[in-house]
């Protein structure tokens, strides 16, 4: 596990600036009704100073991935049967707890989605920030508070000297999120994990926070792992994107590749279901059905029951992204399935036919839409 050769080869030419690489990570939860494979074989890597976006809908495993990296999950019920998380040259999964505690909050910091509930209501924010500082750096109480004031100033909070004496309830949502960011940055982490940092905020406040994160990243060179469901935020913020669906990575690439030329049918469906100006008056695209039941994942490709292009190999074989070469998309439309010797060009025909069918289905825009089309959800 110590050799660089075993690392995922997302950037084989630049292993030196590799900060974090996650390899075949699986996180299962054993609960009463069975086992939930929340994260099921995920690979990705982040270079120093880079921003990686992890995109997906609720329940796709993006937050669990982050919590696994931070080792914040209770085990049991969680179990990590396979995988490695190499941070610089340490495997976070095998580190003893006290070593991990030195990294957590210090070298890797995390911002959570809920600025309302991630701060402790009974302590002043100065106390909460300086607590983190004193945990990791050998400084006096006074110095820790000074550092807290400094980091509050960095995130654009005015009168930080007075703000450190206030409690979370005295602040608005945007300000609390700034406090969270200040706390995360107080120890100058090498990697910042932001789990939906702006989802609970208004759009003008979101703009402030995104600008703030961008500026801080430029100033400090912190790498950022941005978890979000908002493809707009992704387009705005990141270099590389990983799209997750039901615990697996279905597509990866640069932000331009993924958002402008999506390969996976899920990514394509997601992008075309966003309402936008050009779509006014037409029906929005819909990904039929719902996310599969976590206790009963489909065999083969787990998107196949909802996929408009599904064909023979899809229910049989699982099209994972192979490490070290191969197309960066988990889909049999883009590669040859085992035992299915499909001639080149058939895929295109398949896609074209499916698109045509979809277009015909969506054609009833002007007329009354038959009821069965509304039943786009599969009966559970």
């Amino acid at each position, binding site marked *: 596990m110590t050799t660089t050769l075993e690392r995922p080869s997302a950037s084989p030419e630049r292993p030196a600036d590799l900060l974090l690489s996650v390899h075949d990570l699986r996180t299962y939860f054993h609960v009463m009704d069975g086992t939930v494979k929340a994260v099921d074989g995920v690979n990705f890597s982040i270079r120093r100073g880079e921003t990686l976006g992890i995109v997906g809908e*609720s329940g796709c495993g993006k937050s669990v991935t982050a919590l696994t990296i931070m080792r914040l999950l209770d085990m049991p019920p969680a179990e990590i049967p396979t995988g490695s998380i190499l941070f610089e040259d340490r495997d976070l999964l095998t580190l003893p707890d006290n070593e991990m505690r030195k990294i957590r909050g210090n070298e890797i910091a995390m911002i959570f989605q809920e600025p309302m509930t991630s701060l402790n209501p009974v302590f002043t924010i100065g106390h909460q920030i300086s607590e983190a500082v004193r945990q990791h750096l050998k400084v006096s109480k006074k110095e820790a508070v000074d550092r807290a004031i400094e980091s509050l100033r960095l995130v654009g909070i005015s009168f930080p000297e007075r703000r450190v004496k206030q409690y979370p309830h005295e602040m608005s949502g945007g300000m609390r999120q700034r406090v969270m960011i200040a706390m995360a940055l107080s120890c100058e982490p090498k990697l910042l994990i932001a789990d939906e940092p702006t989802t609970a905020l*208004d759009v003008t406040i979101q703009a402030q926070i995104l*600008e703030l994160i961008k500026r801080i990243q430029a100033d400090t060179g912190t790498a950022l792992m941005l978890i979000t*469901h908002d493809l*707009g935020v992704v387009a705005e913020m990141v270099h590389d994107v990983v799209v997750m669906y039901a615990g697996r990575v279905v597509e990866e690439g640069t932000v331009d590749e993924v958002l402008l030329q999506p390969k996976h049918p899920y990514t394509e469906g997601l*992008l075309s279901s*966003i309402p936008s100006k050009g779509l*006014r008056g037409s029906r929005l695209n819909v990904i039929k059905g719902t996310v599969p039941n976590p206790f009963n994942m489909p065999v083969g490709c787990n998107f196949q029951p909802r996929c408009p292009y599904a064909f023979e190999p899809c229910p049989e074989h699982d099209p994972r992204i192979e490490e070290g070469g191969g197309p960066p998309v988990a889909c049999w439309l883009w590669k040859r399935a085992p035992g299915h010797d499909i001639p080149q060009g058939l895929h295109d025909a398949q896609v074209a036919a499916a698109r045509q069918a979809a277009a015909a289905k969506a054609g009833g825009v002007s007329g009354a839409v038959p009821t069965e089309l*509304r039943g786009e959800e599969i009966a559970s």
Partner: protein
Amino acid sequence: MTVEGSTGNGRASGDSLVVVKDLRKYYPIQSGILRRKIGDVRAVDDVSFDIKKGEILGLVGESGCGKSTLGRTLLRLLPPTGGEAYLDGQSIFEQNGRGLKDLRRRMQIIFQDPVGSLNPRMPISDIIGEGLLAQADKENGWGNRKTRDDRVGEYLEVVGLRRDYARRYPHEFSGGQRQRIGIARALALAPEFIVCDEPVSALDVSIQSQILNLLIDLRREFGLTYLFIAHNLSVVQYLSDRVAVMYLGKVVEMAPVERLYDDPRHPYTVALLSAVPEPDPRLRKQRIVLKGDVPSPANPPSGCRFRTRCWLYEQLGRPENCVEEEPPLRELAPGQLAACHWAEKINPDSIRQAARTEGISAGTPGQQRAAEEAEEASMVSDSPLDKPVADENAVPRA
């Protein structure tokens, strides 16, 4: 406009279904053991608009701007403080007893939270049937269990669910399905007007598009009129015919959807639109980042309420009339109203200039000062309500 339609006997002019005139909703701030009133939170302050039959009016604004309060007051789910409202010429606020009950059937609401708005102890048949039972009379026969269940099944099918789901309980459904149940509940009473209060904010993108398609289909099928409240500007753009933008209890701009998005005439609308991230990396826009938070509606700034965060105010060297005079809504183009003294000064150049001074600590010194003053003011006040109010509905998807 609304004014001529709502005077005198309150008959709406032309084809307006809903007419709202000078609607006010204040929440009292009480203090001390005697709960004496010490002030008001002006959640909705003199709002006027009308909605034509079959039209979708989008209502956008940030948390705490009063958009949900407006929707609820309009339906008399909250008592109004002042103003008038009419549904098809009938006064909404003056009705009582039987008249009010009939009105309630004709105006319905779809709530944001698909979890919190369905009683977990009731089967779906009761959740949807409850309204029918309340509105039962000899004519419709909804008092009869069989008739009621038939109607429930019928409307479950209308929203794309199976008839036999009526026996199940809310926890057996996904978020999207629950939202469909909420829609079926509103529709079952055959309303004319529906307030959609952030109906898709809690849903994932792929589910959101299903619900939006459904709402559009239903409008066509049943000839419905919507007041569509949302904070997502793309959703509002996709769905609405006209859009009203609210800031701190006031409508600051109202226009047909194309005009509002192509040529906004209020600095707040301009900033709001520039802040929306587009899912296209080629379109990384010039953003205007507003400073600070929304001021407290208990103590709104004098004159124009937006001036403490306004980029145009700074750009024009802080003109006095912004501080002294409250700008009225005035018509700047056919159908386009904006409440800004200096709306004519908004042009591509001024917007570009404002976007260039973006940044957290950047911004003009004056702007910085204004933001700090506002913050200072909010810090020294000790009233619990005298600070930015978080919308009670601001619980987006987890």
